[in-house]
């Protein structure tokens, strides 16, 4: 597909990187020649240097022929204007980064409709939503929601002495009296899509799907359950922190935000009267101890520096904070941090590029039973795909056990008439269903691709 990315800051780059890996034709626009040059050196993309709200530049980029036009420059207004120009020139879909809180309330709907923006994205809000999902259910390292929030996959890490150590997957339902499905297991660097004979070990990171009630039962019976957080310290007063604090306050948690910048602190305390806002340097251990880090349930480090986030988070872990989350943006650092014991890491850039990728994929597959959404799990090693089943799909009305599926592929849920079916060998796929599956095979574009050849 022809995709134009206007504005190549941190987010823009992450998007370009993942779109190039998917094999799209990419054209980038940025005002800084050195950025354009650098990106065209690293990736196979074409670059134009200029202002993305200048119609001459947009037409030079041939926006009329673009399938997706993405504006992710720093300024919201610029992005909206740029998308508007591209849309008027004939771009099929436009995506704009709009992140100022005042544009993200009622005015968003108005602007989306009138500027014909296909999808506004707000990276900070997306990141805050993901953080909130984790804090709401702190046993989890990560919670992924599928199929318009009707299904969830929860990632947890087993303790070394876990009761699940040495248990065969076949025996789980019986032993712990919970209807759960273990979808994927990460052990060290390897990721497995397990079958019934797979044996779990302590230290594994597993992805589990089940209905909410079954999941709670499972966690209770295996000793993995933790209560929702009550007392959260957030380091760094970014927009993400603001959105997160707002959501946490809504469920009645105590929130403390620490930031170095006095102006930021003041505006936060204006807009979030229920939160305690502390003005000070959060990388000082003294301050953290004084603010009661050792009694907090959760600690979230959201400063602009990956290194600070990692170090401060490790300090929080030493002080027995049960749930520690660090924002780490650079891909190459995340695995190192994980080796140091920080297994709960979020990267706003990755969240955004996943959203865009998902969008691009679903556009591309408007034929056959299409990929509705795509999720990347377990450090991008596993993909979860959601398909709308059309009447012409090849695998209809046959029990799953009789289908010859690809290796390393597991159907984890079938959504029929709004209800989630956790599939067994006898389940059949019907036209009109939505199928969620998980696989380590990359690049599946159609439901028919799941059959082994």
């Amino acid at each position, binding site marked *: 597909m*022809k995709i134009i990315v206007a504005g190549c800051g941190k987010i823009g780059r992450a998007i370009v990187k993942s779109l*190039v890996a998917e094999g799209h*034709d*990419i*054209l980038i626009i940025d005002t800084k*020649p050195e950025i354009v040059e650098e990106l*065209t*050196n*690293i*990736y*196979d*993309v*074409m670059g134009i240097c200029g202002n993305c709200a200048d119609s001459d530049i947009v037409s030079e980029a041939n926006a009329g022929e673009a399938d997706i036009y993405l504006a992710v420059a720093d300024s919201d207004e610029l992005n909206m204007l740029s998308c508007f120009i591209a849309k008027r020139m004939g771009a099929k879909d436009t995506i704009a980064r709009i992140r100022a809180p005042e544009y993200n309330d009622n005015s968003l709907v108005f602007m989306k409709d009138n500027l014909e923006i296909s999808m506004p994205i707000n990276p900070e809000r997306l990141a805050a939503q993901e953080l909130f999902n984790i804090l709401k259910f702190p046993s989890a390292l990560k919670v992924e929601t599928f199929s318009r929030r009707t299904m969830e996959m929860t990632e947890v890490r087993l303790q070394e002495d876990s009761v699940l150590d040495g248990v065969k997957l076949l025996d789980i339902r019986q032993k712990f009296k919970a209807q759960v499905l273990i979808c994927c297991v990460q052990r060290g660097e390897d990721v497995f899509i397990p079958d019934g004979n797979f044996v779990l070990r302590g230290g594994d990171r597993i992805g589990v799907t089940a209905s909410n009630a079954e999941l709670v039962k499972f966690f209770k019976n295996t000793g993995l359950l933790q209560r929702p957080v009550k007392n959260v310290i957030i380091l760094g007063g970014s927009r993400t922190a603001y959105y997160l604090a707002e959501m946490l306050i809504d469920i009645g948690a105590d929130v403390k935000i620490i930031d170095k910048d006095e102006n930021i602190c003041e505006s936060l305390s204006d807009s979030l009267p229920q939160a305690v806002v502390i003005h000070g340097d959060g990388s000082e251990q003294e301050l953290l101890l004084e603010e009661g880090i050792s009694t907090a349930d959760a600690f979230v480090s959201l400063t602009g520096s990956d290194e600070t986030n990692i170090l401060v988070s490790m300090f929080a872990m030493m002080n027995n904070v049960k749930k520690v989350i660090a924002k780490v943006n650079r891909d190459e650092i995340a695995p190192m941090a994980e080796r140091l014991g920080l297994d709960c890491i979020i990267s706003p850039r990755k969240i955004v590029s996943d959203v865009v990728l998902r969008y691009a994929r679903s556009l591309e597959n408007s034929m056959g039973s299409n990929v509705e959404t795509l999720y990347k799990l377990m450090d991008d090693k596993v993909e979860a795909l959601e398909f709308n089943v059309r009447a012409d799909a090849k695998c209809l009305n046959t029990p799953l056990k009789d289908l010859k599926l690809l290796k390393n592929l597991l159907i984890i849920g079938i959504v029929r008439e709004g209800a989630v079916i956790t599939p067994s060998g006898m389940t059949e796929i019907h036209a009109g269903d939505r199928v969620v599956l998980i696989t380590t095979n990359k690049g599946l574009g159609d439901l028919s691709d799941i059959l082994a050849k």
Partner: protein
Amino acid sequence: MNYRIVLHTVGRILQIEALLMLLPLAVSVIYAGQDGTAAIWAFLIAIGISLALGFFLTYVLGKNNNLLFAREGFAIVALAWILMSVVGALPFVISGEIPSFIDAFFETVSGFTTTGASILTDVEAMSHGMLFWRSFTHWVGGMGVLVFVMAILPQDTGRNIHIMRAEMPGPIVGKLVPRLKDTARILYVIYIVLTAVEVVLLLLGGMSLFDSLLHSFGTAGTGGFGIKADSLGGYNAYLQWVITIFMLVFGVNFNLYYLILIKQFKTAIKSTELWVYGAIVFVSGVLISFNIYPMLGDVGDSVRHAFFQVASIITTTGYSSVDFNLWPGFSKAILVVLMFVGGCAGSTAGGIKVSRFIIAIKTVFKDIKKMLHPRSVAGVKLEGKKVDDKTINSVSTYFAFYFIIFLIIFLLLSLEPFDFETNFTAVSACFNNIGPGLSAVGPMGSFSIYSDAATLLLSFAMLLGRLEIFPLLLIFTPSMWKKK
């Protein structure tokens, strides 16, 4: 330096070269009755060596680890061009048609770099297969071998732009479409179509198929190996005009043809470089016509020969329709000046390139203005866009290096026992990838007069000219070869 990917890619180039040699092999087979079988064996052996060496480099010594940066790009291009010329010289030596390896190397370098300077004294004695290979190297070298490789081989890295930048001539190298591979393909399609059109037009003028093909190869690559003793002098006026026009066509930036293809005529026609190029050709042609009219005594002939020579020299092709060595001094002076100008950036022509001159002259004016109005703020514009300081800098650097190297080569060549005009034009003809110079190396002369050392020096000058100095110069820099 990541040696393994450099060797891997260079090995690939040799494999491709072996494939390319299949064509002259076929020609040799067709003409076996006339020329004998020596050429067939020569090509077979050369193909074998090329393949063996290619596979050895690619799979034994090299490895594709995708770590390709600017310096690897330069090294790949420089090494590939040298090795290609060494292997390409083999058929001439093996068949015995050019017994000296150094001479054969010169001839092949001259072919690949689209120079067209020859050490042969009797071209017409060569076998058809060898003549074909000689001209075919022009065609291959014109657009660039590595660009060709990018067009056909699967690739999974975006970093190949470093290779393209090192191989394509001109101050600014950009892509036509987002993907490098597609860009390379588009360029080659345009190249092939234009060549085919020329072949057809030459056939219509009564030229034989073999001659049409070879002359078209020479024109397309702006090479200029003649296959007759008097180059194109023996052909009729129509054929000479066709060649004139196509030489000029191949001296234009190929991006403009792409713009025409996607129907952006306005942008294409507004190109400053195109207009300046056209103006230079027109003015030089008219001046020379007046200057040689008293000598030839016929308006049609004067205009035709004047424009033929102007087109041939400015596009750095090097065909000749008459022996312009006998022309008056003023005409010869214009031609020598044109040698340095060269064609447009992004074409197959050599020389310094019109766009570099435009940028340099505009920079000069800007600086003069700055002296008069010290506080004035002004930029340099080309094609309606501001040229960034980095490009202006690189153009100035290029001019500086160009003249320093020119002078060094000229000084060294002056050790040879020939007159000033011969040596000076020999260096300009080789360094600018033109072919014939004046006096003893004029259109009717030959480079065989030079000693082995001088022949190697001139081969080196041709490579420097084709790759625009830096790739080749960088491989002589010690820090280039440090392991990372």
